[in-house]
């Protein structure tokens, strides 16, 4: 996805499958009956996002890139249903959907994030649908509501992709594999594919660290959000190392990726350092320098952010992002709500 942020596709084809699947899945959600004990979780998500760019001297209503799906003013649902028999749980179904305001297209955009079925095979969890490919920090770090961009927004890998995968947790960590379309948000079959594998030592929620090594190989499309910028599948072969480390009030996330990205030599170095302050870590302050090189051209960005959890349902966030390539200073505010239904 090494595309110019300002390039626009001449023709935008819409996939009917996304709407069909979203419609079916929403029907499943609506059929879920409230109960004292349930086998599902349903959340309503709403966010308002507004930004100002020093480059255009205008207000805009998205976090960083107009064509990217995250983050925009939107309403959505996050649904997880456990599937079980008499012998216990055998799988799960998840759906994460948003209806977002697409600025500057001036229209609503249907966005499907998680849309997967997971089967617990015993030796591994197998998934099918739209999920996180087994690559780097993005495979384990839920950024669905966050403002600061991760490497997929810089063109390295995909936050979500269509396909299948397997994941097995072990005493010392995790092994994950996935085979996906290499098209990101839209479903495309133009000879594109993406095979990924990640091995991690450490379980973040238990050991306070996770050290991962990823390998990615395939022929991927040039995509920004739902916009296919380049329909020609191009060779991608990336190796990466990622580390997440928690200590007292501090959170550190590092990722280094290098290889060939969409036919060009590419390297990226990502660092996010955060500190949790106030009672229950309600206030989080973060800094994020990112440096990347594509086809010999060096670029960097410096971002900082603050997130304040007003209550369990509502967070207020702020981001400043300096783009070293354009000299743009971008200021973004977000009100993000996530409410259990």
């Amino acid at each position, binding site marked *: 996805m090494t595309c110019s942020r300002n390039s626009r596709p001449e023709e935008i084809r819409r996939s009917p499958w996304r709407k069909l699947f979203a419609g079916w899945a929403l029907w499943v959600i609506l059929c879920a009956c409230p109960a004292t*004990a349930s086998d599902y979780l349903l959340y309503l998500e709403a966010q308002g996002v507004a930004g100002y760019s020093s480059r255009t001297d205008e207000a805009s209503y998205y976090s960083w890139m107009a064509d990217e799906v995250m983050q925009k003013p939107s309403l959505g649902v996050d649904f997880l249903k456990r599937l079980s028999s008499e*012998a216990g749980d055998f799988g799960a179904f998840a759906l994460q959907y948003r209806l977002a305001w697409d600025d500057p297209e001036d229209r609503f955009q249907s966005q499907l994030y998680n849309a997967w079925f997971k089967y617990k095979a015993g030796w591994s969890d197998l998934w099918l649908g739209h999920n996180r490919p087994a690559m780097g920090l993005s495979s384990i770090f839920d950024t669905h509501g966050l403002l600061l961009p991760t490497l997929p927004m810089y063109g390295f890998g995909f936050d979500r992709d269509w396909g299948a995968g397997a994941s097995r947790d072990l005493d010392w960590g995790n092994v994950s594999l996935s085979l996906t379309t290499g098209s990101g948000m839209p479903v495309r079959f133009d000879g594109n594919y993406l095979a990924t594998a990640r091995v991690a030592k450490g379980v973040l929620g238990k050991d306070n660290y996770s050290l991962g090594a990823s390998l990615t190989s395939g022929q991927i499309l040039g995509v920004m959000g739902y916009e296919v910028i380049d329909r020609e599948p191009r060779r991608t072969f990336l190796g990466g190392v990622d580390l997440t480390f928690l200590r007292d009030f501090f959170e550190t996330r590092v990722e280094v990726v290098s290889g060939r990205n969409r036919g060009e030599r590419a390297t990226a170095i990502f660092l996010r350092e955060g500190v949790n302050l106030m009672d*229950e870590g309600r206030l989080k302050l973060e800094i994020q320098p990112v440096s990347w090189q594509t086809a010999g051209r060096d670029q960097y960005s410096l971002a900082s952010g603050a997130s304040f959890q007003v209550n369990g*349902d509502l967070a207020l966030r702020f981001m400043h992002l300096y783009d070293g390539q354009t000299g743009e200073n971008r200021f973004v505010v977000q009100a993000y709500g996530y409410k259990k239904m």
Partner: protein
Amino acid sequence: MKQGIIFLLFCLFLADPATHPALAAVGCDLNDPDRDVKRLFPGSTGYKTHYMSIDKQGGDPQLRRIEQRLGDSFQGLYETVDVPYTIYEILNGAEKIGYIHGVNQKGHYGGIQVFLVLDLDGIIKSFYLQKLTSRAATQFRSAEFGKQFEGLSLADFDAYDVVTGKTTATGRVNRINNPAPEAADDFRAVLRAAKKNLILMDEFVYGNRFLNNI
């Protein structure tokens, strides 16, 4: 202009008290239930995941009763009426043999996740500390510390005051040693979480068998 109005509408939706009764929804799941259930409950063949919350079960009256039993009010992000509690019903074939349940608790360095492995009578079979970012995590996760909880039930915690961290009667809870004296806040948080966990399980699963006349 149009976009600005839409942004404001989203923000107004978020600020609408009808849609946001200022209640948290911070759940507490096992990192890897398949592995953890096998490890914590040897002999199990499977498990069923259930989600329960006070607002769906007993609402505010139940919340008041739970607070009374705990001896402290529910507060902050982890203790609201709509928090989804994940209860793992442990199976041997089709037969139920116990439960695993975790709660979030405010610690010195953010959230602590305390899981209890319980038999069908509400007796603690084992204790598991999942999330804890404090540098004293190693001591709190030690087998020696966890063993002190084995065999306890909610009845043992009745005399433990979660506010003062003291017991009003000599009992087994009184004999639980703090493995990291420099982390007294986290030690008290762990004990409060254990008592809260047992009360919630009594309310949700055991039919209030440990409920005294309060």
